[in-house]
């Protein structure tokens, strides 16, 4: 029973959306299912936050290695949460000045905005900025022109790297007009529009077939791995 009902819910949820696509009479059913899905996605954020708290509280109570950093995470989490949910330091909206809670939680200049601008933004952006260094290091250590496939890959990368900056103009700007197509900036365009399009289209078709088959397996109850093991 504990497995049959979820299987039914999966199948109904999925097939409603599929049927809704084919008939305008059932379009609103699809809309309803999609709206419920969207709301559950927001609730998943709360679940995520709850899980984070659970994990880090456990780390602290077990005094696991690095538990003090879990403390930092929790303080950052709770501070942001309280300021955000409480709309602390936020003024009412201009349309409804007499409603204290009507203002935007991310009002410019407010404490939650401050946390975004001076903590969330630099932290997440810098995390991704680090990738520039790792890609450089990987290029030095890992890209070897061992065979024709690797040479094709590296050659294309070189053309793109040069052709998508002004270096391309420097290197091949002197080519005469009848060899225009060999100028790096033009070669880049050709590679992207012709070779890259062909390669990615094949990959896209492959992935699409893969997704269709996994989706069908889930909807028809062939693949039940998402239900996990444990209690029946």
């Amino acid at each position, binding site marked *: 029973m504990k497995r049959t009902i979820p299987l039914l819910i999966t199948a109904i949820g999925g097939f409603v959306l599929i049927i809704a696509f084919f008939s305008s009479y059932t379009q609103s059913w699809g809309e309803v299912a999609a709206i419920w899905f969207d709301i559950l996605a927001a609730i998943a954020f709360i679940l995520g936050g709850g899980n984070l708290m659970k994990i880090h509280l456990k780390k602290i109570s077990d005094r696991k290695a690095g538990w003090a950093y879990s403390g930092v995470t929790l303080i950052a989490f709770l501070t942001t949460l309280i300021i955000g949910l409480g709309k602390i330091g936020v003024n009412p909206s201009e349309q409804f000045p007499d409603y204290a809670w009507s203002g935007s939680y991310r009002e410019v200049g407010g404490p939650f905005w401050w946390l975004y601008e001076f903590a969330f933004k630099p932290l997440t952006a810098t995390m991704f900025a680090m990738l520039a*260094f790792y890609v*450089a290091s990987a290029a030095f250590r890992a890209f070897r022109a061992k065979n024709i496939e690797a040479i094709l890959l590296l050659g294309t990368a070189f053309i793109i790297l040069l052709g998508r900056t002004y270096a391309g103009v420097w290197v091949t700007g002197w080519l005469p007009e009848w060899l225009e197509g060999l100028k790096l900036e033009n070669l880049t365009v050709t590679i992207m529009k012709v070779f890259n*399009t062909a390669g990615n289209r094949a990959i896209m078709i492959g992935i699409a077939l893969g997704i269709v088959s996994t989706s069908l397996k889930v909807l028809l109850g062939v693949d039940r791995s998402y239900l996990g093991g444990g209690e029946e």
Partner: protein
Amino acid sequence: MYEFFRDLDRRWIFLMMFLCVAVPIIIIGATGKTFPEEPTQLVRAVFDEIENLPSGSKVLLSYDYDPASEGELAPMATMFAYHCAAKGHKMYFMALWPVGPQMVDDTIENIIKKDFKDLKYGEDYVNLGYKSGYEGVIKVIITDFTELYSTDTRGTPWSAIPMCHDVNSVQDMDLIVNVSAGYAGTKEWVQYAVTPYPKLRMVAGCTGVQAPLLYPYIPQQLHGLLGAIKGAAEYEALVIEAYGDKMARKDAGDNPLTDDNGDYLIPGKYTEGIRRMGPQLVAHLLMILLIIVGNVIYFVERRREGRR
């Protein structure tokens, strides 16, 4: 020499990368000199889609990115908003990413409120904000906006927003402009909006990682694409060419676009992509150099092993 490179600590590579990006930023910041841009056809297609719409057209701008991709996408977002505002289109901002509304706020504060003071909220532009559910959101608003967006991000009911009166769904839009950093983004807009409703037109600006993956959709399902920072720079150049005299700095003099040296006299916020192409150039050369040196080491090593 050979041993030095073979055993090179990766921190030296990090230092080189730092210098290759930092030095050009400082030089360009101090001198204002940038490289000229020659827009490619795909970028022209983006420009034309917005430019050729009659003034007052409805444009949905979905900013599906966050600060992690701002380096690549913020210049596009800025320019899209500028171009639409300058052309007099009605702008409907929304976001599929949780932090997207902040990106919309930034654009409204820095571009619309500062340089288009005549535009009225609710009549010329509206911020619909974020809804969770990724492609699930597109799936709903493609047939009905109000089911999800009963109010805008300020809490104004849909019926009280004048520019929303004749809008029921995304299908009422004349153009979709998407700034995308990944999932959910351009791919999902193509899959759930443009492909099932082929009358819709759409252009996008996306990160370098995504750009190659989107080419198979062009031009039937995606009508123009700005790929990575280079796409942003080329688009900036096109918008500046068309609207430079309006955006030029007050001290720009007779020729608002460029000074005697050919440098732009346009406010820095509109040349972010163009400026960024300097560090980009030097860092790309470093990457190529690193790959070549790495390979030389590899082949020397292989030959030595062969001899043994």
